[in-house]
């Protein structure tokens, strides 16, 4: 395509000469080649980044696993790498990560899905155009600010709520640091990830399907739940997966508001550390390479990477399996 027209009219000799000149121009040819090669290198650099991530995580963790058996890492129930008699059980950190993620999803998935259905099926066009960018600001707020908000606004407020006379008997006692408030705030942060992508997926469902449902006497709600939602499931699933991997990898909110003590518990009202919060706690200040913490954060990081990668792969498979082409 880039070599220009194949054969011009032979009558104009000058023109012909110009074109053969261009075609034969070595500088022109090589400049194009070199530029293409450089651009390819830029695109390929992203693969180098992934390789860098995987190789560093694996090689640094390899040293860790020479000292700690994989069995101890996965079954031991305490995580105290800095103690004199160190214990290396990742379970408390994984539990903390899963619980904060669970709380966040309990907030974000229902609210995000309802907002998506509302914006795509109910809201008038003008309203949607205003609400969408405002909601997207929720994911633009820096997470450290959310951490401040969870610790100094949401936690005191939840405490007050839980100590109301008619609730105090049913509600757990809330610590100053708790996975619950960190999780709730994290959930609100990921609402736009869920709602925006789900809404895009639902809006790409063709109108014909909706009209079919209306013709059978369905109202908007039934059409949304029984027709639009299932048809957009692959896109909605991708949105959910994105929300989950954001929640698993989220760091500052939990590091600030959930406490930093590894704590194997299933009670969200308690403080606990997550994988990410542990990494932050250890690497505050200059972390010497020889210390016990250095290898441990890479083993923890590898676990985190495997977890998010797992969810991303599941998401990829779901998307392929349930994709509906219109």
């Amino acid at each position: 395509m880039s070599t220009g027209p194949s054969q011009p009219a032979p009558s104009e000799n000058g023109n012909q000469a110009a074109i053969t000149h261009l075609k034969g121009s070595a500088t022109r040819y090589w400049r194009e080649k070199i530029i293409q090669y450089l651009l390819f290198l830029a695109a390929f650099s992203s693969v180098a980044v992934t390789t860098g991530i995987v190789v560093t995580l694996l090689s640094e963790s390899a040293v860790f696993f020479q000292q700690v058996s994989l069995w101890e890492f996965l079954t031991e129930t305490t995580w105290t790498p800095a103690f004199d008699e160190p214990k290396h059980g990742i379970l408390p950190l994984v539990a903390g990560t899963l619980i904060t993620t669970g709380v966040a999803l309990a907030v974000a998935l229902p609210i995000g899905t309802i907002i998506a259905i509302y914006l795509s099926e109910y809201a008038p066009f003008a309203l949607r155009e205003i609400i969408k960018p405002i909601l997207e600001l929720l994911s633009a707020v820096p997470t450290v600010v959310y951490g401040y908000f969870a610790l100094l606004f949401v936690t005191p407020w939840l405490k007050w709520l839980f100590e109301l006379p008619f609730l105090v008997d049913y509600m757990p006692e809330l610590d100053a640091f708790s996975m619950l408030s960190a999780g709730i705030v994290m959930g609100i942060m990921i609402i736009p990830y869920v709602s925006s992508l789900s809404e895009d997926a639902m809006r790409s469902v063709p109108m014909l399907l909706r009209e079919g449902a209306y013709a059978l006497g369905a109202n908007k709600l039934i059409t949304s739940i029984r027709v639009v939602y299932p048809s957009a499931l692959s896109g909605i699933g991708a949105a959910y997966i994105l929300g989950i991997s954001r929640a698993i990898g989220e760091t500052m909110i939990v590091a600030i508001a959930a406490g930093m003590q590894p704590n194997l518990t299933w009670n969200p009202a308690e403080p606990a550390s997550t994988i990410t919060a542990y990494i932050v706690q250890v690497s505050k200040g200059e972390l010497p390479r020889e210390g016990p913490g250095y290898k441990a954060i890479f083993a923890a990081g590898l676990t985190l990477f495997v977890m998010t990668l797992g969810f991303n792969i599941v998401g990829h498979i779901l998307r392929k399996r349930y994709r509906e082409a219109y």
Partner: protein
Amino acid sequence: MIDIQRLINRRKRQDLFFNFLGIACTLVGIITLLALMGDLAYSGLTRIDWQFLTSYPSSSAEKAGVLPALVGSLLLMFITVSLAVPLGVAAGVYLEEYSRKNWLTTVIEINIANLAGVPSIIYGLMALSLLVYQFHLGRTLVVGGITLALLILPIVIVSTREALRAIPNGIREAAYALGATRWQVIKDHLLPYSAGGIATGTIIAMSRAIGETAPLITIGVPLFISVLPDSPFQSTAPFVNFDWLTAKFTVLPIQMFNWVSRPDPAFHRNAAAAGLVLITLTLSLNAVAIVIRYRLRKKIKW
């Protein structure tokens, strides 16, 4: 007949109910955003003054300020953007305009999608091991800049590709028909036409990078620092110097993290004030992006 009427009424009530539910859920998000900003303003607004913006951190909450953190954040953004934009745009151009559909392209594309899902703290771990300890670059501005640039690279690539894809093929074909080479088409036509879209994506990426804390803590950026990097400009020739690239630094979100983790409420007010400065920066970046996007949509009709 009565049954049908009742059924219709019930369905209408369902719809009405869901309408309210949808509005309520939307309000949850909006009210949280307002509460967050209100809380920051309530605790921090009185703390923001010239002294706060131009002072160094201090053990006394009233005397402390954000100057080194603010300067650090701005310099770091400068490095991040000057690394991520050329690399990301080049990668996007290659994938959209050059690459053929083969396994290598597929690998690169899947890889970029996965990179966007990698938690930011993992980038910090990689930078700590590779840049700080293997390459001995230290915990400097340039290391922070590289880390954040790699972090936002997928956003820049994706927005470049989307902007290029929006340009109709007729433009390319017209230029080829006049004898332009592929690179001439890209340089003289595609890049200028997609500049707005690329700028929007870059600004969104910047607003994410400026609030990013975890990867920087991981590479060991100090929680507070009381010196400024050398100025990039000097009065003698050659008028610019690059010593600042290897300076130690801290950034606004880390300064805020430092203050919020102290028990003394006086420091919490400082944290709120730092948060206000930070959120003003991110939200104004977002506002600029929204304005550009809006004007593009109005102006360009292919």
